[in-house]
């Protein structure tokens, strides 16, 4: 397995609060990785720095050997990293189909000026909606969909951008058990097709059941990493996260 996404000494402070304190992590290609840790341990800030949504104060991020630290978020998407947000974000007044079509892979000027509803693109977008079980909502405005459906829609959009590595920020947050089951299955299926995942999640049942590798954050830096069975019994993790 090759290293896919790596950070070196990533630091980010907001005023006097240090969110990331020299985080050096590597996620290998082809794995389902989980990033866990107590609230405020810097997990979402880590995602935001990696995806270019915020600039780290120092440190570097490389993806498949390429430095992406200072790249704009859309260039990081084009490099192959997609993400969802902790509080699910969809385009509320656009239809579900347009939400998925809005995901952009690099296109030339001519292609950008052509109709957004090119048959092949619509077919591709619909296929993601179908796979996530929300194809019947293709013409419905996203704002009228339930929270769980919006979570699936957000993931469909990310998948349509064609990333090899997907960062999911709390995919289980606020979803019912049936949908949670579906999301877990979907992650494993997509991983089997070659996609790498990094998942921030507090639902330990989900994390332990779908992850190959877990990194534990505390106070802005990793304190432990390893396979689920190792993390489950790691004393530092039990102390910092599970409060045992």
């Amino acid at each position, binding site marked *: 397995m090759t290293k896919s996404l790596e950070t070196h000494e990533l630091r980010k402070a907001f005023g006097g609060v240090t969110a990331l304190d020299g985080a050096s992590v590597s996620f290998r290609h082809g794995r389902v990785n989980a990033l866990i840790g107590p609230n405020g341990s810097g997990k979402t800030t880590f995602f935001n720095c990696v*995806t270019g949504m915020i600039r780290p104060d120092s440190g570097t991020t490389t993806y498949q050997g390429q430095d992406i630290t200072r790249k704009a978020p*859309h260039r990081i*998407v084009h490099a192959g990293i*997609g993400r969802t947000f902790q509080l699910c*974000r969809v385009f509320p007044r656009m239809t579900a189909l347009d939400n998925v079509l809005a995901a*952009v892979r690099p296109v030339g000027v001519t*292609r950008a000026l052509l109709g957004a509803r090119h048959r092949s693109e619509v077919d591709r977008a619909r296929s993601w909606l179908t796979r996530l079980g929300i194809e019947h909502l293709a013409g419905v405005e996203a704002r009228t969909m339930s929270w769980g459906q919006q979570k699936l829609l957000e993931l469909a959009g990310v998948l349509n951008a064609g990333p090899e590595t997907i960062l999911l920020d709390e995919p289980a947050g606020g979803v019912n*058990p*049936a*949908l949670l089951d579906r999301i877990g299955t979907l992650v494993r299926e997509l991983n089997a097709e070659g996609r790498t995942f990094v998942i921030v999640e507090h639902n330990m049942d989900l994390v332990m059941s779908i992850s190959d590798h877990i990194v534990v954050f505390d106070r802005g830096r990793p304190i432990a990493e390893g396979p689920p069975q190792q993390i489950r019994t790691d004393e530092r993790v039990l102390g910092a996260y599970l409060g045992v």
Partner: protein
Amino acid sequence: MRNASRVATLGAAVVLAAALLLFPSVAPNPYVLSAGIVVLNYAVVATSWNFVGGFTGYISLGHGALAGLGGYATGLLVTKAGLASFLALAVAAVLIALLAVPLGMAALRVRGASFVIVSIAIVLILLLVFQSWASFTGGSRGLVIPRPFPDLSRPEHHRAFWYLYAGLLALVLIAWWLIDRSRFGLGLKAIREDEDKAEALGTPTFAYKLIVFVVSAFFTALGGGLYALWFGDLDPVFQFSILSGSYLVLMALLGGVRNLFGPVVGAVVVGVALEYFKVSFGDTQLHLVATGVLLGLVVMFMPDGVLPALGSLVKRLRPDDTASIREETASELRDQRLASSTAGDRR
């Protein structure tokens, strides 16, 4: 649903085309025709504003000044450089589009209220420059621009400009429609909904915003330049006015920023109302009070504008054919999985 929308757009286009062709013949006198040209100018510039405001949600109060720049650039190219009127108009629009690149690069770095404030600042700076640089712009004395058709009588002059404006409006509407249905347009609408999310899905948001700002400035300058050739006299106080920019926002909001014809409908309502108030109440500021009240009413009762409100009304009267948005229960999912595994076993 999409077909119904297409039919409505086509119907509206036919009605608008008929109105544009017939109005000069039915206008009772040259004054009404000239008032119609003012409204048509508003329609062109408000639709041009809607490239930025409608697609990206960035509310610019500076578009009145972009029209003013187009007017002054056209006038100065005619009077100082000796260019033919309509060549000057085209060159001026290109120049303003080029100027929009650095303007956009500065202004589009900020969002929301900050962008509105930057757009106001641009208006005020331009007003100062054009008032102070009297040796070049004519300053407060104004800039007189020779008529492009000196042999025509005033009614014929109005009639010619009516059709020129009608052609320009058609061009602007076609450009807006083309962007609306393009991948580029979808990216712009994604920016309007959630700019960070659009960027996170791969849209180069800054480049998209800048391109559409430049396109908008080009058409706004064409509208302003044509106005300069028609009216023949420019004054910085009126050309670089926050009020004129606010009128454009009101028109687009009133008609509906997400609709092709929204700013046109808004321009007709607000343009006619402004003319009525000016004729009926002279130099009082009653027209400002009226437009303020209108803006309040629109924001409170029709935040999406008149056309979407009408569309919702029509939709409410039709039988509901929207898909169910209920979630599936665990038992339904279990049944589906069972059915698919049974089908898999058969294969």
